[in-house]
């Protein structure tokens, strides 16, 4: 309990530090929004011409997008500092984290506040609204209750992946190229329904790098779609389990990594 209080204090401090730059706050959110509007705009351009993508209509695509945006937004809120973590390792800044009586991971996670979450939540909610409307989703109590669970599972998946990539910095020092590929570029995979890829890639995105669980599989449940691609009905509900597995492995990797930390020569 006390630990939670401590983390909240740390978090409050990082928010305070972030608010020093209040002027750019709104513009920052606007810029992120513009980026996603551009991305959705391109989807729109394609669907305007081709009507659907492997059986997924505009509304369904937008819903797919909303699940992703929510998971990503909350992940940014909690795991944002991990993106630049390699700098802490290279400069030896991680030293001071280790000499405090608090979990190193907790300290790193709460040392920065990421405002982009707001933008993602705006995008996510808007997409959710229009997506449900266009795709004609029938919201039952079941679906409404499961929605946060699925988003939570998605957060564990993206957060776990982030943590694993971060831990690589303990061995390689710099990991920006990996961060770029695994955290940012790979997002592009699930901007589209996963059944557009060949079976090998679908397998990869399901069982090895399981980001298909963030939106593709659970979307079937919400949209009442029947199976396609690699889909087995059981996978529809696989998100929380995938999340827990990924996150557990990532915590383990992180622990091993911390013991491998080399600090710096000066």
């Amino acid at each position: 309990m006390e630990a939670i209080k401590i983390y909240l204090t740390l978090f409050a401090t990082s928010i305070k530090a972030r608010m020093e730059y209040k002027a750019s706050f709104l513009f920052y959110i606007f810029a992120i929004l513009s980026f996603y509007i551009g991305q959705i705009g391109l989807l729109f351009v394609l669907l305007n011409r081709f009507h659907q993508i492997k059986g997924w209509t505009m509304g369904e695509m937008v819903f797919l997008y909303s699940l992703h945006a929510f998971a990503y937004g909350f992940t940014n809120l909690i795991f944002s500092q991990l993106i630049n973590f390699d700098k802490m390792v290279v400069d030896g800044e991680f030293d001071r984290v280790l000499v405090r009586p608090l979990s190193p991971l907790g300290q790193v996670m709460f040392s920065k506040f990421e405002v982009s979450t707001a933008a993602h939540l705006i995008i996510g909610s808007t997409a959710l609204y229009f997506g449900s409307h266009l795709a004609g989703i029938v919201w039952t109590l079941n679906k409404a209750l499961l929605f946060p669970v699925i988003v939570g599972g998605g957060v564990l998946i993206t957060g776990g992946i982030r943590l694993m990539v971060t831990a690589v910095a303990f061995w390689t020092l710099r990991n920006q190229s990996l961060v770029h590929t695994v955290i940012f570029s790979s997002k592009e995979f699930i901007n589209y329904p996963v059944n557009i890829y060949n079976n090998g890639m679908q397998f990869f995105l399901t069982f090895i790098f399981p980001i298909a669980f963030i939106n593709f599989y659970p979307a079937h449940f919400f949209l009442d779609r029947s199976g396609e691609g690699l889909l087995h009905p059981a996978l529809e509900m696989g998100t929380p389990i995938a999340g827990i597995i990924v996150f557990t492995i990532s915590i383990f990797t992180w622990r091993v990594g911390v013991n491998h930390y080399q600090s710096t020569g000066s």
Partner: protein
Amino acid sequence: MNPKLFLKFVSISFQKQVTYRFDCFVGIVNGFLYVFIFTSLWKALYSQFDTTVHNGFTLTAIITYAVLVMAVKISFTMDDSIIYGKVMDGSIAMELIRPTSIFFMNLAENVGHSLFHIMARTVPIVIISIFIFDISIPFEPVRLLAFLFSFLAGYVLISMLNFTAGLLAFWFVEIFPFMLFKYALFTFFAGGIVPIDFFPEFLKPLVNILPFQYMLYFPTVILTGRIPLTEVHSIIIAQLMWILIMGVICSLMWSAGKKKLVIQGG
């Protein structure tokens, strides 16, 4: 700027890139990931119809476009935070007392950066893609020459765009939102994902008054053979015109920034 000095800077910047073997490898994976996603997307879209030509592209043509536009984009990789960094840490003041033009020095750094990415990423990705995908590139010497011109012009344009964006740091504390906004516009309008031909009519006027299509789309379609050789010159002329316009903007902003630097001491 003295060409010898220019080459010296190119070489320094090139060497800075060659640091981590791991990074090189991940860089190739990253580029190929995009190629894979977009070729899969186009295949899925085309497979839904009996017609084989959409907006003037056969499946082979659109796959060729997807591979080459990514190759061009990767070749254009540059560090757009150099100028920003120099303004922020005050080292831009050094540029005032150097006899060399800051724009050309920045260009040299970018060229070094890009040469490395061409060698370490573009070439391997294109080679892999030729083996995996059905690609056709017309081999006409004149066309290759025209492509080279157009490619270089596009390169200078992007360099100028990044340069002006970086100079905004004279007036704004945080320019990351600007960079993101620039990136959003670039992603949508440059044709890096969806070629301009697929854009709905109402967007065409907007596309035409912006410089972005001259950065990726036109160099690429010159190479793929979509533009008849007889029309190539008009495109290159338009590119040169944009270079002129951007050049004026660059130097206006630079002299305004210099004035601010001298008066306020940065």
